[in-house]
C-alpha cells in the first residue's frame, strides 16, 4: 500500500508533477540529441579523415617520418602491398610516393606534399575519385595530369587544364621541376586534401624523381569489423624493418577527439541531471512541507520513520522515472529520423569547412548511451529523493500535527 500511496501522492498536484516530468522528458531528449549531434560531428569528421586521408593503417620506412626524405622508401614496397591485399580483413591497399615541394601557377605559389599515387588502388583506398568537385579523375589530360584541392586551386587561382609547375628535390638531391595540368579539383572536409596535397600519377612522378620504382607509403583500408591493431601487429611481426601504424598513432588528434567526445555524454549527463535534481528536490520538498500534518499523523499512529522515508523516496523515484522512458523514446526517435535525413547545416558550411566538418550532419548514438542515460536517471532519482525523504523523517510528529 505504501507504493500505492506514493503513486497516488505523485498525482495529488497533477500540474506540478507534470511540469517536473516534462522537464525530465526535455532534459533527457536534449541530452540524447545533443550527444548524438556532437557524435555526428565526430563520427562524420573521423570517417572523412580515415576514409579519404589517413586510412585505417599506414606503412612507412621508420626513418621516413622524421624528415620525409625520399631515400627512406619501403624496401620491396610494391611486393609487400600485393601480399597485404590478400590478407583477410584488408579491403584495399595502395602505394604512394611522397615528396615535399612547391607548386606554382602563373599567379601564386605554395608549399605542398606531392603524392604519387596508384590511380586505380587509390580510388579503392581513399575514394579520391569520389571527391572530384570539378574536372575528372586523371582523365581529359594526357600528359602529367594533376589533382589538387579546392582551396589550393583558389589560392593558386587555377582552373581545370591550367598549367602548374611542381618543384622538388630528386633522388640525387638536385632541385627539379615538372609541369603538370590540372585534371581535377577535389573538395573534402580534410584540410590537407583541400589545401596541402597534390596528387599525380606514380609513373609521371617517377620520371622526374629518379627514385626507381620505390614507394614511401602503403595505405590500407580494413573491414570495419576488423580491429586494425591486429593487422598492424601482424605486419610489424612479419616485417620488423618497416613501421606499420594504425590511424590512432598516425592521427592522434582523432583518437583524442574520439575519447573527448566519448566523455561528452557524461559531461552533459552530469550537467542536465544536476539541473533536474534541483527541480525534483524543489518539487518534493514542497510536497513534503505541504503534507507535514499528514506525515506527522502517520508517524503518530505508528508508521516507522523508515517507512515514511521509503514512501517519500518511492514517490520521488516515481516522479523522476515516469518521464524517463518518454524522454529516451523521443531522443531515440529524433536521432533515428536525423540519422536518415541528416541535419542540414549548409548555412554554416563555410565555417564548418574551415574546421574540416561536413555541412550535412548525421547524429549518431550507440546503444550504450541509452543505458548510461537510464542509469543516470535512476541515480538522479535517488539523489533527488534523499533530501526530501530525510526532511520528512526529521519531522517531529507533535509539531507536524499542529501545522496548518
Amino acid at each position: 500500500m505504501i507504493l500505492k500511496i506514493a503513486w497516488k501522492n505523485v498525482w495529488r498536484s497533477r500540474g506540478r508533477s507534470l511540469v517536473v516530468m516534462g522537464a525530465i522528458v526535455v532534459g533527457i531528449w536534449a541530452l540524447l540529441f545533443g550527444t548524438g549531434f556532437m557524435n555526428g560531428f565526430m563520427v562524420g569528421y573521423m570517417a572523412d579523415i580515415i576514409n579519404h586521408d589517413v586510412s585505417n593503417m599506414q606503412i612507412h620506412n621508420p626513418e621516413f617520418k622524421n624528415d620525409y626524405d625520399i631515400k627512406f622508401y619501403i624496401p620491396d614496397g610494391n611486393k609487400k602491398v600485393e601480399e597485404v591485399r590478400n590478407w583477410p580483413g584488408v579491403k584495399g591497399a595502395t602505394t604512394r610516393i611522397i615528396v615535399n615541394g612547391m607548386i606554382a601557377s602563373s599567379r601564386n605559389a605554395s608549399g605542398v606534399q606531392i603524392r604519387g599515387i596508384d590511380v586505380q588502388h587509390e580510388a579503392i583506398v581513399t575514394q579520391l575519385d569520389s571527391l572530384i568537385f570539378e574536372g575528372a579523375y586523371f582523365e581529359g589530360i594526357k600528359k602529367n595530369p594533376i589533382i589538387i584541392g579546392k582551396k589550393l586551386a583558389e589560392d593558386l587561382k587555377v582552373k581545370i587544364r591550367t598549367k602548374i609547375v611542381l618543384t622538388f628535390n630528386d633522388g640525387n638531391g638536385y632541385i627539379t621541376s615538372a609541369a603538370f595540368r590540372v585534371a581535377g579539383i577535389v573538395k573534402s572536409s580534410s584540410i590537407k586534401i583541400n589545401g596541402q596535397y597534390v596528387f599525380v600519377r606514380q609513373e609521371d612522378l617517377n620520371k622526374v624523381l629518379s627514385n626507381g620504382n620505390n614507394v614511401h607509403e602503403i595505405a590500407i583500408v580494413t573491414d570495419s569489423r576488423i580491429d586494425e591493431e591486429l593487422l598492424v601487429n601482424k605486419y610489424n611481426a612479419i616485417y620488423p624493418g618497416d613501421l606499420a601504424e594504425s590511424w590512432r598513432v598516425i592521427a592522434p588528434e582523432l583518437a583524442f577527439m574520439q575519447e573527448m567526445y566519448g566523455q561528452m555524454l557524461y559531461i552533459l549527463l552530469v550537467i542536465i541531471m544536476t539541473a533536474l535534481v534541483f527541480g525534483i528536490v524543489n518539487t518534493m520538498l514542497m510536497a513534503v512541507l505541504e503534507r507535514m500534518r499528514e506525515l506527522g499523523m502517520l508517524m503518530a499512529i505508528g508508521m516507522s520513520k523508515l517507512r515514511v522515508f521509503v514512501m517519500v523516496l518511492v514517490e520521488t523515484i516515481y516522479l523522476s522515472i515516469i518521464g524517463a522512458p518518454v524522454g529516451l523514446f523521443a531522443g531515440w526517435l529524433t536521432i533515428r529520423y536525423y540519422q536518415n535525413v541528416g541535419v542540414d547545416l549548409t548555412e554554416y558550411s563555410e565555417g564548418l569547412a574551415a574546421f574540416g566538418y561536413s555541412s550535412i550532419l548525421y547524429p549518431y548514438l550507440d546503444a550504450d548511451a541509452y543505458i548510461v542515460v537510464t542509469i543516470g536517471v535512476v541515480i538522479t532519482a535517488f539523489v533527488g529523493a534523499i533530501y526530501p525523504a530525510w526532511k520528512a523523517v526529521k519531522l517531529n510528529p507533535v509539531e507536524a500535527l499542529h501545522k496548518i
Partner: protein
Amino acid sequence: MSVIKVENITKVYTETAVPVHALNGVSFEIQEGEFTAIVGPSGCGKTTLLNILGGLDHPTSGRVEISNIDITEMKDSDLINFRLNNIGFVFQAYNLIPVLTTLENVEFIMLLQKVDKKKRRKRSMDLLEQMGIAEKANQRPSELSGGQQQRVAVARALASKPNFILADEPTANLDSVSTSNLLDIMAVMNREEKETFIFSTHDQRVIDKARRVITLEDGRVKSDEIRE
C-alpha cells in the same frame, strides 16, 4: 485493570525565553473501559498531557505506565511501534490520508501491523458498519462530511485493537448533529466493546457524556470527578 498510570509527571518547555511549566506533578490512573474527558481552559496542559499519554512526547520528570509498561524512558523508535499496537488516535482535524479511500484509510494501520489482507479488509468493513458509513467505503475523505470523516478516524483508531483511544478535541470541527452521532457511536463502543476512550475537550456535550472528568488548571489536576 489499570490501562494508564501517571505518576507525578512534569513537563517544562525550555526552548522559550522563559521556561514554561506545562504540567506540574500530574498523577492519576485510568482503568480499562473508562470514558474519560480531560478538560480545562486553553493552556492548562491538556494537549501536552495527551501527547505524553500517547507516547508522542516525553515528560520532564515523573513516570507513565501503559498496560504496566513504563514508556517514560522508551526510545523514539520503540515508541512508534508501541503506539502502533497499543494506542489509537483521533485528531481534531481528522487527518485521514486524502489519496486513499475510506476503507483503505481504516485498513492502513493494520497494514502497518502486518495483518493479513483478508482479515484487515473484513475488520475494516465491520468497523465501517459499526460507524454507520459502510456505504462510503470506496469514497475518498474529500467526498465525506466532517462528521463522516471523524467516524472514519474513529474506525481507524479502533482498527489496530489498541488498549485505549486518545481523542484530541474530536468534536471541535463538527456541528451539533455530527457531534451527537459521533459521541453516540463512541459511547456504544465503550459500553459494548469495553473500549477505553480519553478525550481532551472544551466541548460541553462531550463533557456531559463522559463518565469521568479530569479537570486541569495551570498544569495540575484541579479535580477528578467520577460519575455514575
